[in-house]
C-alpha cells in the first residue's frame, strides 16, 4: 500500500478526533453559548454511542492502513453480564470501545460501585492469564484455604471465600477473553486470505467487509459448545462472587442498623403472597355476591337468574372502573 492512504488516514484520524472534541464542546452545557439551541433534545447516550462507533471506525481505518492489528473488536473484553476489565465485576466496569456500559452507562455503573469485595485482590500485581498471576493465584489459594481462628473467625472465612471466588472469576474471565481474541484472529486471517477486488473499493465497503467477517467468526464461536461452557462458567463465577460480596454487605448493614437486602426481599415475598391472597378473596367475594343474587332471584321468582359465571366479570368491571379513576401516567398522549 502506498504512503498516500496512510497520510490521509492520519489526517482523517486527526480530523475525527478534532470533530469529536468539537462536538463534545457543543453538547457540553457549560460550554454552550446562550441561545445555541437546546442540548436537552439530543440524548447524551446517543451521542456517546455515536462517538464510540466513530472512534472504533477510525481505529479500524488506522490499523488497516498501517498494517497493524486493530484493537480487538470487543474492546477491553466483553463478559456475558456486562463490560469488565481485569479484576472488575462486569456489572460495575466501563470500558473503551463498548458503548452500552463503557460510555452512556458509566454513571449508572459508578453509582453501583460497591465499597469492597471487587477490584484487584490484595497482593495481585500480575494480570490474569500471565504465568506470574497463575503462580500468585496458586499461593493465594493455598493461603486462603487455611483455617480461621478467634473472635472474627466468621468474617475472616467470608473474606477468604470472597478472595478465592475472585481468583476463580479471574480465571474464567481469562478463558472468555481468549475465546474472543480467537474470534478476531480468525476474522483477520480470513480477510487477509481474500483476493482484492478488481475495482477500487471504498473505505466503508472494506470496513463493512471486515465487520461481516468478524460477526461471522463471532457467531461461529458463540454457537460452539466451548463458548457455551465458558460463558456459563463466567456468569456463574460472577454470581458466586456477587453473592459473597452481598453477604459481606449484609453484615455491614446489620452493624450499621440498616435494612438488608435479605430483609427487603423477605418483605417483598410476603407482600406478593398477600397480593395473591387478596385477589383470590376478591374473586371469592364476587362469586358469593353472584350466588346471593341468584338465590334472591330464585326466591323472588322474578325470572331467570343470571348464571354465576358472569359474576367474576362483573367484579372485574367494577375493579376496572375503580382502577381507571387513578390519574393516568406519563405516556398517554
Amino acid at each position, binding site marked *: *500500500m*502506498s504512503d*498516500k*492512504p496512510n497520510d490521509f488516514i492520519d489526517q482523517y484520524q486527526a480530523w475525527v478526533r478534532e470533530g469529536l472534541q468539537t*462536538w463534545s464542546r*457543543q453538547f457540553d452545557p457549560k460550554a454552550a453559548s446562550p441561545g*445555541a*439551541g437546546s442540548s436537552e*433534545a*439530543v*440524548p447524551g*447516550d446517543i451521542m456517546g454511542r455515536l462517538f*464510540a*462507533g466513530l472512534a*472504533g471506525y477510525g481505529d479500524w481505518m488506522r490499523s*488497516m492502513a498501517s498494517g497493524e492489528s486493530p484493537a480487538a473488536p*470487543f474492546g477491553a473484553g*466483553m463478559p456475558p453480564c456486562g*463490560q469488565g476489565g481485569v479484576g472488575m465485576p462486569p456489572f460495575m466496569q466501563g470500558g473503551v*470501545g463498548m458503548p*452500552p*456500559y463503557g460510555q452512556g452507562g458509566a454513571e*449508572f455503573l459508578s453509582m453501583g460501585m460497591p465499597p469492597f469485595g471487587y477490584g484487584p485482590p490484595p497482593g495481585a500485581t500480575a494480570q490474569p492469564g500471565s504465568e506470574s498471576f497463575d503462580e500468585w493465584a496458586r499461593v493465594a489459594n493455598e493461603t486462603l484455604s487455611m483455617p480461621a481462628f478467634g473472635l472474627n473467625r466468621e468474617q475472616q472465612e467470608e473474606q477468604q471465600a470472597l478472595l478465592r471466588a475472585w481468583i476463580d472469576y479471574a480465571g474464567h474471565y481469562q478463558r472468555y477473553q481468549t475465546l474472543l481474541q480467537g474470534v478476531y484472529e480468525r476474522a483477520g486471517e480470513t*480477510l*487477509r*486470505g*481474500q*483476493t482484492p477486488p478488481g475495482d*477500487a*473499493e*471504498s473505505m*466503508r465497503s472494506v*470496513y463493512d467487509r471486515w465487520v461481516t467477517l*468478524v*460477526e461471522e467468526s*463471532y*457467531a461461529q464461536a*458463540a*454457537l460452539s459448545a466451548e463458548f*457455551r*461452557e465458558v460463558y*456459563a462458567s463466567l456468569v456463574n463465577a460472577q*454470581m*458466586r462472587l*456477587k*453473592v459473597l460480596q452481598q453477604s459481606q454487605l449484609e453484615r455491614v448493614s446489620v452493624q450499621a442498623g440498616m435494612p438488608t*437486602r435479605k430483609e427487603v*426481599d423477605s418483605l*417483598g415475598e410476603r407482600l*406478593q403472597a398477600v397480593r*395473591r391472597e387478596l385477589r383470590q378473596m376478591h374473586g371469592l367475594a364476587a362469586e358469593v355476591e353472584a350466588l346471593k343474587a341468584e338465590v334472591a332471584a330464585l326466591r323472588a321468582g322474578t325470572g331467570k337468574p343470571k348464571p354465576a359465571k358472569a359474576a*367474576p*366479570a362483573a367484579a*372485574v*368491571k367494577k375493579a*376496572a372502573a375503580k*382502577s*381507571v379513576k387513578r390519574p393516568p401516567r406519563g*405516556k398517554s*398522549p
Partner: protein
Amino acid sequence: MTSNPFHIDPQRAQAEVDAFRRKLEAGLETLKHVGPIELGTTPREAVYREDKLTLWHFKGEKPPTAKTPLLICYALVNTPWMVDLQEDRSMVRNLLAQGEDVYLIDWGYPDGADRWLTLEDYIDGYMDRCVDVLRKRHGIDAVNLLGICQGGVFSLCYTALHAEKVRNLVTMVTPVDFHTPDNMLSHWVRNVDIDLFVDAIGNVPADLMNFAYLTLKPVRLNQQKYVGLVDILDNPKEVENFLRMEKWIFDSPDQAGEAFREFARDFFQKNLLMKGEARIGARQVDLKKITQPVLNIYAEQDHLVPPAASTPMKRVVGSKDYTALAFQGGHIGIYVSGRAQKQVPPAIHAWLEKR
C-alpha cells in the same frame, strides 16, 4: 494467502472522507434541532390499570368493523411501543385502519415490589383479568389474542389454559422450540445457574438484558450502526426515526426476578413448552388444547427467534386450522419496515375476518 486484500484508490478515499465530513457538519445542525422523541402515536385510553399494568384501547379514525376485539400481548422485555412506533410505522394504526378493535397490554416497569411476580401472576393473573375486562366490555365470551415474541409464548400458555376465552390466536415471532441449533440466546443460557443468577441479582436489570442482546452481534450493533448513522445525519426525519428506534431499544423495563427465573429455566433451558411439560403455577400447559384457529407469523431473518424455533408450533398445537406466514425481514423489521406495514396488518385482518 494474499498479503494485501484491499484495493483502495487514494483519491476516491479522500473524496469519501470529504463527504463524510460534510455529513458530520450537517449532522451537528440536525442534532441541535431534534425535538423530544416520543413513542406511541396512536390516540389511546386506559381502560384498566392494576399495579404497573395498563390495558390500552386504541382509537382509530373510523369505528372498528370487527366484532371481536384484538388484544395484543407484548413481551416483558422492552416496551410494547414497537407496535406503535410512529405514525407511518405503526402496526396498531394499520390494524385500526383495517377495521380491527385493538387493545394492548402494557406491562409497565417492574421494580423491587414486583420481584416475586411469577409467570402464573402474569398469565393467570394480569393477562386473564385483562381478557375478562374485554369480555365484559364487549359482552362476548372470547377475544382474539395477538401475542408477540415472549408475549406469544404467554398467549400460547394462556390459550391452552383458558381455551374458552380465546376465539382466534395470532402469534408473531414466537418461539416454541427453544433448543434449535441457531438460537444463540438459548445456547448461552443453557448452562447458566439460573437460580444462583436470580438469587444474586433479584430483578434482572434492563441494561443487562440490553447488553446481552447487543452481544448477539457485537460489532454490528455497537459500532457499525453508529458509523452508519453518519450517512443520515443530514436528514432530520431519518435522524428522528433512528433516535426513536434507539429510544425504544434502550428504554426497557427490568425483569421481575421470579418470572425471569421460571422463563429462563423452564423454557430456555429445559424446553418444556416444546415437550408439553411446561407448568404455569400448578397447571400443566398442554398446547394440544389449543384447538382454535392459529396464525403464526415469523420473520425469516430473525436472529432472536429463528424461524426454526417458531415453525414447530404447527406440530405442537391441537388446532386443525393452522396458518403460517413467513415475513421477509428481521425481528424488528416485522413491525416497522415499510413492507411490514403493507403486508402484516392486512394479512392479520384478512385471516381474522374469515373466522
